[in-house]
């Protein structure tokens, strides 16, 4: 047996056997789907501003809530995971992806009961986002405070 499949060489050799991800196509798909989600968000903001006379700032919260509701429903109907496979980061990065990670965990652990199942596992995937979000916000907040007082 040649060195090609030697234990040490193996991980290099098999790279030629693994199908390559199509980065360009993935980027385009992510751009289109992610962009579409943002377009829907814009439309929702306009809707809340026009119909309910909210200011642009006030319309923000109901817009996000509506997107979360739609994503949660799509997760429950078994559509969001298919969208995720197609769009990748396009459907993972927006708030809808966050909603999907929470809803899917809740659905998955429903059989283990409401407290130890759903409640305990709800942030199984989203927990890290929250942890790093809070930490980053804290650091930036401190920096901003320090800079404001220095200059």
């Amino acid at each position, binding site marked *: *047996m*040649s060195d090609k*499949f030697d234990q040490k060489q193996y991980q290099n050799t098999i790279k030629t056997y693994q199908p390559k991800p199509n980065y360009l196509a*993935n980027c385009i798909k992510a751009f289109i789907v992610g962009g579409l989600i943002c377009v829907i968000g814009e439309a929702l903001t306009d809707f809340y501003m026009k119909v309910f006379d909210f200011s642009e700032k006030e319309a923000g919260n109901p817009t996000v809530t509506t997107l979360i509701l739609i994503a949660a429903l799509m997760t429950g109907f078994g559509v969001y995971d298919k969208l995720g496979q197609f769009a990748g980061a396009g*459907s*993972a990065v927006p708030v809808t992806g966050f909603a999907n990670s929470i809803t899917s965990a809740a659905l998955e652990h429903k059989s283990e009961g409401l407290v130890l199942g759903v409640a305990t596992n709800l942030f199984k995937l989203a927990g890290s986002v929250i942890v790093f979000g809070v930490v980053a916000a804290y650091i930036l907040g401190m920096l901003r405070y320090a800079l404001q007082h220095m200059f």
Partner: protein
Amino acid sequence: MAKIGKQTWLYNQQIYVNSTGTAVGPLEAQGPLSNTFDKKYDELHCNQDNWELAERQLMKDSIDACMQRAGKDKSGIDVILAGDLLNQNVTSNYVAKELGLPFLCMFGACSSSMETLATGAALIEGGFAAQALAVVSSHNATAERQFRYPTEYGGQKPKTATFTVTGSGAALISKEKSSIRIEAATIGRVMDYGATDPFDMGSAMAPAAYDTIKTHFSDLGRMPGDYDLIATGDLSGVGTPILRDMLKEDGYDVDEIHNDCGLMIYHSDQPVFSGGSGCGCSAVVTYGKLLSDLEDGIYKRIMVVATGALMSPTMVQQKETIPTIAHAVVFVREEEE
């Protein structure tokens, strides 16, 4: 002695597969082997309340189908050897609880299908059982939940990923004559070629299949030409060419006779990435399609090499590599009197 060479068991006594039973989920039922399965569900829940119960239902169905075909009562089984992919092998344990029969639980990840069968045959050979039942199961949703993410999570998987087969296969074996004889088994060694990607099990398991097949040939002094078919369990589209090339380096050309259960069970346009995996994969393909083809005379001698990635999410997160194993069982056709 029944042990030949380094790792091979050549059964001296005549041990036969008397009956088989299979049960599968919706995607498998839409696949090319649909008409070879006994029980098919058009929905992943299999009429149960949760995924674990669904998998248990599949295992019960495959055992029922197997015993019904054999026309025998379950009480006559001396030992049940069962395995699945879940922690504590819950599917096997809970099904065995209901059966109330002597039970050996086995775990070899996706290699459990041939592990249970080879061990069952050895117990019969040794006179510890007259009738043994080997059964395994896997379920796409229970496996996703345990090894990956929640079922409905929208994460993107790479093309190298495999799709866990929802299904269960059972085989009843004894010395009672039938047209399918279990001739030999080669017990695998754990191989670790440094794979770390849980979304590429095919390339992680290819060295295990290679080692078992190569050892099998040298133990028995055989060549690929002695087999009409060598079927690996779940190397998928990535691991299959790697295995063939590895064997070629040693002078064994299996291209013409090798196939992979993970590639046979689905149509290429089904959404299963690089193919099927799980112990249900090799079990339902072997106990459904392959053994019935053997019975029909399409093959004379076949070898099924069930490949298993002994993967634990905790170990992977602790930056350890993924060990793998493969067990082989040889089936031959015998003319019935």
